[in-house]
Structure formats: structure tokens, C-alpha cells
């Protein structure tokens, strides 16, 4: 099976430099204090390496720690132990090269769609006129041209998500983190957005970490799929997906290779899924 190489990713982090991986998590743990006052481990001994220009997808059961991982990479949260590096540098604060599509709504409710999308360039000192031109362009790309003047509360859930995508894409980040960005979209819009994302990614050579629940989506998009365990998240397995690029989303699902890859990952996962399921059921009832 040449398309797929299950491999436990244990590369040690390379020294900082031109060839440093875009994102590195080394032995990272993250604990929270629960309301009962006990420490709860969300991430444990977590290792992840995303090379420059690489597209990594992360899948795992809900509540396992995917969003927490992305938060650590942005610098919004700090690890309880271990180290997080971006472009070879330990993460200190928020890096201007990082773009992040939040899982939950984070649009500015007092700004129209246009102003929301233009926010990034304006923050980064792009002249007004240029920023708005760019914003209009991106709004059109997410098919909201008619809604430029709407405020977020006047949009549907999927439309708000598209605004968030435009808001992030417009900055052309070198590192793009996305937390279930397409889950609120219908199939055709999602396909369009996926194509848009791949085009953006191949154009700018950005490194992407993409969290999703949809294994097919993960396989369709990624170079590497990280599968996380339930409970305190560790990396269960990393799969390398070497489907040829460029990939066209509306077609790839009918590709024989693709279907095989999905099936293999599913088979490899089934066992873990059942363990996880059993565990939640035990703790549940």
C-alpha cells in the first residue's frame, strides 16, 4: 500500500534555522484546574511537528484537546510543561505570522462584514483604500458580496463562519490554524471553500493545522493526519497521505485511492474508537 504510511512520529526537533519546522510541540502537557479543585490533564506528552508548507489535519473525539493544542500554538495559552516552537522560536506571545479561525464565533459584532474582513490589513498598517479593496475581494470569494454592509447578527451561522474565514485568509498567514472551519457549511459551499483553501495554501506555501471531525475531509486535504486519543490527548497515530496534488475536492471523493486511504485509516482506528467509546460509556453511566 504505497499511498499510506502509518508511522509514529518521533522526530526530535531540529535546531532553529532556515529549515526549522513551522510548528513543533515537544512533550507538551496542559493541565486545567477543575471546579472541584483537582488538576485535569487535557494534553499529555504531546508531540507534533508540522514542516514548512505542510498541511496537517487533526482528528479526534470531541473534548479530547484539539482546540487546546491550537491555542498553545497561537500563544494565547501556555503549556503546563514541555515546549511549543513556531518557526524554531519558542512561543512567547501572539505571533503576527499566525492566522487562526476560531471554533466559536469571534467576529466583532459592532463592525459590518466589510469592516470585519478589513480589520486584519488595517491592523497591519495597510492603507485604507487598499485594505478595503482586498476585503471586498475576499468577501466575494466567500460569496457574501451582497452582505457587505450586514452586521454579524444579521447573518446565518454559516455566513458568519465564512466571514471568519475571509478575515483570516486576507492576512495570508504563514501559519494557518483552523478549528473546524467548515462544519457549519453545506456540502457545496464546503467544497468551494476547501478548494479556495487549497489554492491559498499552494499559492503561499503556508503551513496549515486543520482540526476537523470529518475523516474524509481530513484525508482529502492533508499531507498528514494526526489521530488523537480520547481522555488526555496524545498522538495515537500519524498517517501520511500522499494522494497526488493538486487535488480537486468535488472529484477526489470518487477517486479509488482516496476511498482506500479512508478505509485503511478507519480500520486502523476502529479499535481505538471502541476503546474510547467504551471508556466514555463507563464513566458516563
Amino acid at each position, binding site marked *: 500500500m504505497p499511498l499510506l504510511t502509518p508511522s509514529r512520529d518521533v522526530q526530535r526537533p531540529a535546531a532553529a534555522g532556515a529549515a526549522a519546522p513551522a510548528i513543533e510541540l515537544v512533550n507538551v502537557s496542559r493541565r486545567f484546574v477543575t471546579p472541584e479543585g483537582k488538576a485535569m490533564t487535557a494534553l499529555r506528552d504531546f508531540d507534533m511537528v508540522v514542516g514548512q508548507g505542510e498541511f496537517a489535519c487533526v482528528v479526534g473525539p470531541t473534548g479530547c484537546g484539539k482546540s487546546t493544542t491550537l491555542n498553545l500554538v497561537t500563544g*494565547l495559552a501556555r503549556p503546563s510543561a514541555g515546549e511549543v516552537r513556531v518557526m524554531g522560536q519558542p512561543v512567547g506571545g*501572539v505571533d503576527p505570522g499566525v492566522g487562526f479561525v476560531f471554533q466559536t464565533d*469571534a467576529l466583532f459584532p459592532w463592525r459590518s462584514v466589510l469592516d470585519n474582513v478589513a480589520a486584519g490589513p488595517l491592523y497591519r498598517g495597510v492603507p485604507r483604500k487598499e485594505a478595503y479593496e482586498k476585503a471586498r475581494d475576499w468577501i466575494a470569494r466567500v460569496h457574501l458580496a451582497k452582505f457587505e454592509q450586514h452586521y454579524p447578527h444579521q447573518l446565518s451561522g454559516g455566513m458568519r463562519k465564512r466571514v471568519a474565514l475571509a478575515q483570516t485568509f486576507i492576512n495570508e498567514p504563514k501559519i494557518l490554524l483552523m478549528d473546524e472551519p467548515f462544519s457549519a457549511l453545506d456540502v457545496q459551499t464546503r467544497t468551494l471553500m476547501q478548494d479556495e483553501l487549497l489554492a491559498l495554501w499552494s499559492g503561499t506555501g503556508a503551513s496549515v493545522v486543520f482540526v476537523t471531525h470529518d475523516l474524509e475531509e481530513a484525508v482529502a486535504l492533508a499531507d498528514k493526519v494526526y489521530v488523537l486519543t480520547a481522555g488526555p490527548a496524545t498522538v495515537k497515530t500519524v498517517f501520511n497521505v500522499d494522494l497526488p496534488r493538486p487535488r480537486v475536492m468535488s472529484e477526489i471523493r470518487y477517486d479509488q485511492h482516496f476511498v482506500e486511504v479512508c478505509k485503511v485509516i478507519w480500520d486502523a482506528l476502529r479499535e481505538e474508537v471502541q476503546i474510547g467509546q467504551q471508556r466514555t460509556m463507563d464513566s458516563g453511566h
Partner: protein
Amino acid sequence: MTDMTMPSRAVPSSEDIETAARAALARRKRLVVGLRVGILVAVLAGWEISTRLEWIDPFFFASPSGIFSQIAIWITDGTSQGPLWEQVLVTLEETVLGFLIGAVGGVACGILLGRNKLLADVFSIYIKIANSVPRVVLGSIFIIAFGLGMASKVALAVVMVFFVVFANAFQGVREADRAMIANAQILGASPVQITRTVIIPSAMSWILASLHVSFGFALVGAVVGEFLGAKKGIGLLISTAQGAFNANGVFAAMIILAVVALVVEFAITWVENHLVRWKPTPFHEQT
């Protein structure tokens, strides 16, 4: 920005809907104005009758007719300190100055301390101490420090306004949604830009709420300042009337103050409506 709805069988055109919505708005407006006027008339009539029947003593509590004729005299003959509009202008000037300085200072300090936890921890205790100082005592200290001119009244108005605005601006900043701040940060905003484009807009309803109440306070500050020593102003008018056992004069001056407060209030509301156009109408208020 409201939603337009109308329960009806026939499919109405956009114009129909708009006309109906406008009519409903106008009806409601008439109702509100009617009720307001009704209450006013009822209160005034009750007051006048009670004084006529001597249930309450007009010597202390004045009477609407007496107040009215006092205002008429002031308007036609002027007050003992000069024409009425001059008094209003003097007080208004002190108030507006004090209000602006206090509001700007309060917002600035609120944002500064709200954004910086260390500063907040260190200084909030001193602000609380300052807030417990009786304003009347401050009044005489200000007169000593700033003299009997406008400055001391303005200072008094400032301290009346500052604390209310500060408290709200501070809390408003602390309440800003952390997801939104994080988003701005990641989009590349500097701390100053975050303050300007995220913190201030989200604290805006807090600040505006405090401005509504604090204009009244500024007015009170200016008047109390005039009370303590002044050449002109409505406060002096009140204190003179009080000295002469002229209850009608006291109440008349207070009514003039109320009119001033309402005019400014409408201005603030107008500004507010322009600033919060983005807000959704609550479901239960959609008609």
C-alpha cells in the same frame, strides 16, 4: 434596524409592510407621549390641589401656579442677578465643562486601569478612598484651591462625574469578550489598536450608561459649587430663593435645571443611537 413583521393572510408588498410598521410606530409614540403628559398633568394637578386645600404647605413645598408665575417673572423681568438665560448659560457652561473633563478622565482612567491589572490593583484602592470624600467638603477645598470663579464649580462637577464614569468604564473593559480580544490580537492588532477597536466598542454601552446618569451629577456638582459661593448661576438663584424663604423660587430653579438636563439627555441619546446601531433587537421587542 428592526425586523418588520405583520400577521396577515394576504401577501403584502414591501410598501404595505413599511407603511404598517410606520403606523404602528406612530401609534406607539402617541401612546407614550400621551401617558407622559397624563402623568405630568396628574402630578401637577394633585400638587396644586393639595396646596390649595392646605394638605401640604406651599410655604415649604411651593405650588405649581406659584412656580409658574415665578418662572414667568424671571423670564420677563430677569432675576436679581441678571437675565435668566445668563444664569442658565453660566451653569450650563460649568456643567458641560465639568462633564466633559470628568467623562474623558473617567473613561481614560477606566480603560487604563481596566487594561492593566497591576495598575488596577495598586490604584483602585485610592480611587475608592477619593470616592468616599463628601463633595460638599471638597467644594470648600476647591474654592480655596481654585478660587471663587468658574474653576471650582467645574472641579466639583468633575469629581461628581469622574467616579461613576470610571467605575463603568473600568468594568466595561474587564467585561470585553476574551475571544474577541484574542481574535484581534491574532489578526495583528497592537495593544493600542485592541483598546481602540475592541475594548472601547465593547465597553461603549457601559460608558454610555454612565454618561446618562452622570450628566445629572455634573449639573448637581456645578449647582452645589454655586451654592458655596458664586456671582451668577442657577445655584445662586436657588440659594438666594432659599435665603428669602421663597419656595416657589427654589422649585422654579430646579425645574429650569430639569429642562437643561433633559435637553442634554436627548443629545446623549441621539449620540448613543448612532453608536449602537449594530445591536440586535431583543426577540421579545420585535413587533
